[in-house]
């Protein structure tokens, strides 16, 4: 009887290991906010610490919108994601602080030199963190536009085999 239980446990373990081997970790890029299709929702659902210091504006084209933040203003957005990295597009290269559930992270430009817009990124967790609130604070000392907020996370994708 005991032998049968051991065999079953081994078989189950083997199955679980096999299932684990079928799983490939891949970066999944999820758009959290692109500030399009906001309708009449003020600030596209974001809450600013100073509502007069935040507004929706266009970025590089009339079709493309972002959130403009005055110096010192922060805006938060309720979300429910699991993430390892957060990326945003901004016309400010430095001084953008990301807040995840109140924890601050300084965002860094992924490219050098002077550009009209930069992609800023920060690694917030190895292995992924569940996040309930995402905030962006403008500490650059000048007006900044934020756009294309994305989450990058490793997701276990099953093999087709």
């Amino acid at each position, binding site marked *: 009887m005991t032998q049968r239980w051991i065999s079953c446990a081994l078989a189950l373990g083997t199955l679980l290991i096999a299932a684990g081997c079928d799983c490939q970790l891949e970066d999944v890029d999820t758009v959290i906010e*692109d500030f399009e299709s906001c309708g009449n929702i003020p600030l596209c659902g974001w809450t600013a610490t100073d509502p007069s210091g935040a507004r929706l504006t266009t970025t*590089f*084209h009339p*079709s*493309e919108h972002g959130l403009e933040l005055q110096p010192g203003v922060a805006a938060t957005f309720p979300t429910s994601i699991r993430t390892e990295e957060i990326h945003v597009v901004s016309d400010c290269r430095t001084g953008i602080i990301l807040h995840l559930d109140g924890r601050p992270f300084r965002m860094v430009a992924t490219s050098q030199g002077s*550009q*009209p817009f930069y992609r800023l990124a920060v690694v917030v967790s190895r292995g992924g963190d569940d996040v309930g609130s995402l905030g962006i604070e403008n500490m650059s000392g000048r007006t900044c536009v934020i756009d*294309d907020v994305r989450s990058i996370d490793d997701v276990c994708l099953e093999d087709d085999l």
Partner: protein
Amino acid sequence: MTLKTALSTVLLVAVALAAFPAQSQEVVAGPQGRSWDDRGVIIAFGMEGVWGTVHPHGYDLKDTLEVYDFDPYPGLFNLNVVAEVLFAVNPHVELGVHGAYNGLLDMDGAAGPASLTTQEIGGVARLLLGGSSRRAHGEVGFRFEGGVMLVDFEVDGISDNHTTGFVRPALTLGGGGGSDVGTELSFGWTFAQVDRGLGRAALPLGGLDLTLLIRIAP
């Protein structure tokens, strides 16, 4: 038939005409030692191949396209439609009007599908080194095009229209000498830029230009 297929067909016909020019029915004497009396109209139409049209004079557009996940090097080679009406005023000079329609860029990115098209209206001057006639098309010279470029930068179905000037100096080579129908091949460079065409930044246009025209001297 798609527009690109139609344009490619016209280009092939133009190349064939260039390779097998029509035989002359009426050879008009050149200027050597004779009075030149061949003033008249020349109609030209054909294709323009544009390489690197989108941002050869700056990288604002490339950088912006990149952060928005568009192809940062779009429109490396495009076929465009060109039409001209010229007037041969003397053996060395042809003056006329130039029009072109360019579909430069068509791609997808994080901001949605994008396309960039330009239309050119302006003047063209053709300066021939050896001197020639309307029908003796075997000459070498320079072309200068310039005028107004109407730019439509469309992203996600919303247009952003701009108007800017352009100049295009080129070296030119005629083919199909002596016949009413000839060809002209020119290599040039386009200079154009829309200031603040990308929100706060400039939208640089231009680049190497290869034009093949069919010339008809009625």
